[in-house]
């Protein structure tokens, strides 16, 4: 896998610097959560990032660090700078939401720490160079208001979004003017110095909440590798569950104590921070002070706030709030972890808010796109239903727990219209989360949380809380994806995102039915041999394709360069069957898709057609068009449409990579199909890359007329048959440490196959058969040992030996006699051909010699026909009767050998 250390298409090469900085004992001490400077190509402005965690790489030689990138304005592409809409502050940085850049860095490239200030404070005079400011996030396409959630430390510290019922209809209008820009923020902001102190406090913390960290880890891994996310998540979660007994203990203490909110949050964050409690307490006083101010903004909200509620801050609620918040949080790879940032929400541009979730979803959309999606309607609908909800809010006042919720909600009032996920949706979300959790086998520690009914009275343990918050986040990720799909289905033109297009449900007209699903799930392989057999099956997709590295690299470079340049080209790939041509190309495409997902290369479409899978060469047009545009038209029309598509310029056209398998079957007399396929890439605006596969090396010379061959060009590649070493490597890599074969046995198979054809499929099939033979050779399938030489020999015999000799040996007496008569007649004539009549004379004579009663002509013919049906003899059409000519399909020696063995 090619990995680019690029950041927004600027390739960046790290120099491994000498300033060795390490977590504990070096000059500069950096800890996770801190903001750091990272060495880049500009000494004046090093890169800024937040350190999320340290880890060693596989070999433990290098220390790596996982970071959340921040961007300086200078790193934003020139043409996008205008999007900011105001003059940037020199010390301003942006939260980076894009995915194009790897968030793993080498620890040695860290230069030092930097002070970081949350966004609410107005820009100070440019002076201290070590202080930077975050106000907006940058997702490679637009600036968005930074969501506070991004900067938060733990899920628990997230201020919950208010449920709308608690919010009078007039609230959002009042909030709107207030939240215009950071400076005009109406909510009283805490003293910047306090903030800064608090920031440094939280920054220097040694550990983060375990649950949070695991989420981060999981998510980053998820983005980095293609491993299934659920697996990792569940693994991590299990880990986190194990990690947090201390936290739970603390939690049990907390309800009893009278604590302020921030205090609790601090505690939640870090149980080891006993010593710092004083500071946080101090801090909390100021925060809560500010809170009261904020709440007083709306009488409704202040009503909600009861002292009681503050005291009994329910953990449950934070999980609910998370549930609601997660839509905003889900798009990000990592949630940043600054506690205090969470307490003071961002200044928000309400326009963005109304448009939907600015930071939503991985598809990196601009907010505007969302406006048409049903979500917004949902918000409105919500407002409409408020009266009924008011009752609920009244109830909430009575119930202290809900009161707190309301209080928390009120805090970030500007956020309200967006971040809130309606209640009804929450129900479904919980349903979904329930399902997912079931899948993840997490039921054991999260079960209790789920039921909607006990929202307000149930206080789950912290462990529950953490895991639930994790899973809830994940749920929301999935859920929103689903929503994206739905939304785009309704407004397909507005969502150019490729992934979403794929989700688009096809209309019933094009619906393809599938094979009915099975009632009993397929059984998994039980023992080693079965496991080996499953791995050796040709259909199982191997983790890597050994022995084709060079070919892989060549094709990859070819396609990548074409995609990057936006040009077109053809490539011809030849090789005998079973040498991995198609598999290699699929692997290349997989890697390229991944690269384009990471924004390293522009997106492209991949289309595959197979000459064998169509009934007529002209169907190629139909299939290509159908895969490109989902249209179904006739071949002629499709050809015209494609012609138009590839010859006309179109803005935003993405490159199409077309794989034509079994090219030789697209041959027509005029060769117009091939001609078109190779002509399109040469068009100026086509942006078409054609990869063709066939078996013969000289196909272009043999079957193509000049003008077609010339257009195909000379970019050719031929896949050599595998050598025995390569075959052996293929099997070994497929088996992947499943010890089922003796080394010698493997070598025998690979040598035998390499000598015959070099066909990897054949090789795998033989190995599979050998495991079967091995399994059957022992009485108990469980006790079957390794596949040994004799098993392999048997399999080879079965597959390679010709059955003619056995067939002759098993034939009836008269049939054998007839074969001898044929040979006798051939010898007499000196030809390899005789009529039945002639042979039959011989046959009679022979049967007299053998002392058998001679058979009649009809019987003789029947015997002859039976031999002909087995293709031991080649016969003319039977209507010629006695005059049909007879030839042997086996060599005379074989027949004599077989018959001799019978006699002995």
């Amino acid at each position: 896998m090619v990995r680019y250390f690029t950041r927004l298409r600027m390739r960046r090469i790290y120099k491994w610097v000498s300033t060795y900085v390490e977590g504990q004992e070096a000059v500069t001490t950096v800890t996770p959560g801190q903001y750091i400077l990272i060495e880049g190509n500009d000494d004046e402005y090093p890169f800024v990032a937040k350190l999320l965690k340290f880890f060693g790489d596989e070999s433990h030689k290098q220390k790596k660090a996982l970071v959340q990138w921040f961007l300086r304005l200078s790193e934003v592409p020139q043409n996008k700078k205008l999007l900011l809409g105001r003059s940037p502050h020199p010390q301003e940085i942006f939260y980076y939401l894009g995915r194009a850049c790897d968030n793993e860095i080498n620890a040695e490239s860290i230069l030092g720490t930097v002070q970081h200030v949350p966004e609410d404070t107005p820009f100070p005079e440019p002076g201290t160079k070590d202080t930077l400011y975050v106000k907006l996030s940058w997702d490679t396409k637009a600036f968005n208001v930074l969501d506070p959630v991004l900067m938060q430390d733990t899920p628990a510290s997230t201020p919950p979004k208010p449920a709308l019922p608690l919010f009078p209809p007039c609230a959002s209008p009042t909030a709107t003017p207030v939240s215009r820009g950071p400076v005009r923020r109406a909510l009283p902001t805490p003293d910047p110095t306090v903030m800064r102190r608090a920031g440094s406090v939280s920054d220097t913390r040694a550990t983060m909440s375990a649950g949070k960290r695991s989420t981060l880890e999981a998510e980053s891994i998820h983005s980095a590798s293609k491993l299934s996310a659920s697996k990792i998540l569940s693994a991590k979660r299990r880990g986190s569950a194990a990690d947090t007994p201390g936290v739970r203990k603390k939690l049990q203490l907390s309800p009893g104590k009278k604590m302020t909110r921030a205090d609790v949050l601090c505690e939640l964050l870090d149980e080891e921070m006993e010593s710092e409690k004083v500071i946080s307490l101090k801090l909390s006083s100021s925060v809560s002070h500010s809170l009261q101010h904020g709440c007083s903004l709306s009488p409704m909200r202040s009503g909600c706030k009861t002292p009681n509620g503050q005291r009994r801050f329910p953990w449950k609620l934070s999980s609910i709030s998370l549930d609601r918040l997660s839509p905003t949080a889900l798009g990000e790879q990592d949630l940043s972890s600054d506690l205090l940032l969470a307490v003071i929400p961002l200044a928000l541009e309400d326009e963005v808010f109304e448009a939907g979730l600015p930071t939503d979803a991985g598809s990196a959309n601009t907010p505007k796109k969302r406006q048409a999606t049903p979500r917004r309607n949902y918000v409105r609908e919500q407002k409409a239903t408020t009266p009924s909800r008011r009752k609920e809010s009244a109830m909430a006042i009575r119930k202290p727990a809900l009161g707190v919720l309301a209080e928390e909600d009120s805090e970030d009032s500007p956020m309200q219209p967006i971040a809130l996920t309606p209640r009804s949706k929450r129900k479904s979300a919980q349903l979904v989360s329930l399902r997912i959790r079931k899948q993840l086998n997490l039921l054991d520690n999260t079960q209790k949380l789920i039921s909607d009914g006990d929202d307000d009275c149930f206080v789950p343990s912290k462990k529950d809380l953490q895991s639930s918050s994790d899973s809830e986040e994940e749920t929301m990720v999935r859920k929103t994806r689903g929503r994206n799909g739905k939304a785009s289905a309704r407004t397909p033109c507005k969502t150019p995102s490729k992934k979403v297009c794929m989700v688009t449900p096809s209309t019933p007209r094009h619906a393809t039915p599938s094979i009915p699903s099975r009632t009993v799930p397929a059984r998994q392989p039980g023992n080693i041999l079965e496991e080996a057999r499953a791995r050796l099956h040709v259909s199982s997709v191997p983790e890597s394709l050994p022995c084709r590295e060079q070919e892989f690299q060549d094709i990859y470079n070819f396609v990548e360069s074409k995609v990057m340049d936006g040009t077109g080209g053809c490539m011809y790939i030849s090789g005998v069957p079973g040498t991995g041509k198609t598999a290699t190309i699929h692997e290349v495409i997989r890697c390229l898709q991944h690269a384009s997902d990471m924004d390293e290369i522009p997106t492209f479409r991949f289309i595959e057609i197979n000459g064998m899978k169509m009934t007529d060469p002209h169907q190629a047009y139909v299939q290509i068009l159908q895969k490109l545009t989902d249209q179904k038209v006739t071949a002629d029309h499709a050809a015209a449409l494609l012609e138009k598509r590839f010859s006309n310029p179109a803005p935003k056209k993405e490159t199409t990579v077309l794989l034509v398998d079994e090219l030789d079957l697209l041959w027509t007399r005029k060769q117009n199909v091939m001609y078109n396929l190779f002509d399109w890439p040469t068009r100026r605006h086509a942006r078409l890359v054609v990869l063709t596969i066939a078996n013969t090396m000289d196909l272009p010379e043999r079957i193509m007329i000049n003008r077609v061959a010339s257009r195909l060009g000379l970019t050719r590649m031929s896949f050599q048959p595998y050598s025995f070493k390569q075959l052996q490597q293929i099997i070994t890599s497929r088996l992947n440490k499943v010890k089922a074969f003796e080394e010698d046995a493997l070598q025998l198979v690979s040598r035998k196959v390499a000598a015959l054809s070099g066909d990897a499929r054949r090789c795998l099939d033989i190995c599979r058969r050998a495991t079967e033979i091995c399994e059957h050779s022992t009485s108990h399938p469980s006790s079957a040992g390794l596949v040994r030489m004799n098993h392999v020999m048997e399999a080879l015999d079965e597959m390679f030996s010709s059955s003619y000799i056995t067939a002759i040996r098993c034939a009836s007496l008269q049939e054998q006699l007839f074969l001898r008569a044929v040979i006798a007649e051939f010898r007499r004539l000196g030809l390899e051909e005789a009529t039945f009549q002639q042979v039959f004379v011989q046959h009679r004579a022979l049967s007299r010699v053998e002392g058998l009663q001679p058979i009649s002509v009809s019987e003789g013919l029947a015997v002859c026909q039976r031999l002909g049906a087995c293709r031991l003899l080649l016969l003319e059409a039977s209507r010629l009767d006695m005059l049909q000519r007879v030839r042997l399909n086996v060599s005379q020696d074989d027949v004599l050998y077989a018959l001799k063995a019978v006699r002995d």
Partner: protein
Amino acid sequence: MSKRKVKETHMPVGECISQVQMILRERFCHQRLPEKPVGMESQHKHLLELLRRTAVHGESNSVLIVGPRGSGKTMLLNCVLRELLEVKDVNKNVLPVHLNGLLQTDDRIALKEITRQLNLENVVGDKVFGSFAENLAFLLEALKKGDRSSSRPVLFILDEFDLFAHHKNQTLLYNLLDVSQSAQAPVAVIGLTCRLDVLELLEKRVKSRFSHRQIHLLSSLSFIQYLDNVRSQLSLPQDFPDTNFYDEWNDDQSVVDVLQRHYNSSKDFRSLHLLLMLALSRVSASKPAIKPTDLLEASRVCMVDSKANILHGLSILELCLIIAMKHLNDIYEGEPFNFQMVHNEFKKFLQRKSHSIHNFDKPVVIKAFEHLQQLELIKSMDSSTAKIQKEYQLMKLLLDHSQIMEALQKYPQCPTDVKQWAIVPVLET
């Protein structure tokens, strides 16, 4: 070797006979599968294991069952399928699709049949499959959608597999085998064929995708086993309603001879069943057992030379013409002849030797000649008959000397001079 049926008091003989006939006929006409396939235990195990893995583990496979005609390929497969479907896990879990190369003569028909048997045609509503291309794309899409663990395995049973290999481009085989080699819906492709060289028919791409598993059904029964088989075939089942019926075999030498001869000719059971069927049909209320003579008679019927039979029904004139042809064959060493030559030969015979046969007009002789041609006892050698006059068309005789002589011996009231002529040709003097 006869089966003696003792009269029973409470069951009339006629009823017993009809019962026996019913049971045995079911057996001989392949209406009921045998309990266990005989003489192919290892093949049975192999195939069962293979299909079971497809059904249970969702592993795709392809296999060919090769064996001469009548060797029990279909019987083996049906036994395996029956056994497979008895397993509870599998019962509702597989979708068998039966195709026959003789019925589905091209891929278009085959695809339609597959779609029909998979019950996919109604899934898309009232859509009618217009084109072959659409149908193929549709089916492939359907198969592609499935995956190993969730979709039901499909068993494609291709009878007369070799005929599918003659389809254009072998599209169907390529696609089926490709599915079996890729991570799509699990399929098992089972081909039945009698051709030993079937793999050579496959195109190299198709061949590479085939797993090269072949199950050979080549019976290697000895004569003793063969006899045992005959015995078990004829014996009545244990639960026959009338307990007083029992079978007793006597080792009559003539029967053994008959069976030995039969065995020599062919080892498969289908011809044996034919023989026994004929014998069975002679059993009646008045003759309640199969006697050796019955078997002899049946064997005679089986072995009879059909052409010699036809000769018995010919007129004297036609017979004379055939004898003339035989002489011509002798003279010209198997070179083709025409009507004129035959007529000359016949006239020579009439002039010199004949006492009993009148002179026939030429049109009458031509008519007789044409009749022989219609009976396919003689065959025209030229492909185009239009240009040449009937009299001069070159013909060949499709009879062996021995057949002619045998027919003459048996011909009722054959004139002696004709017989004589058949042995000694009229010489030119």
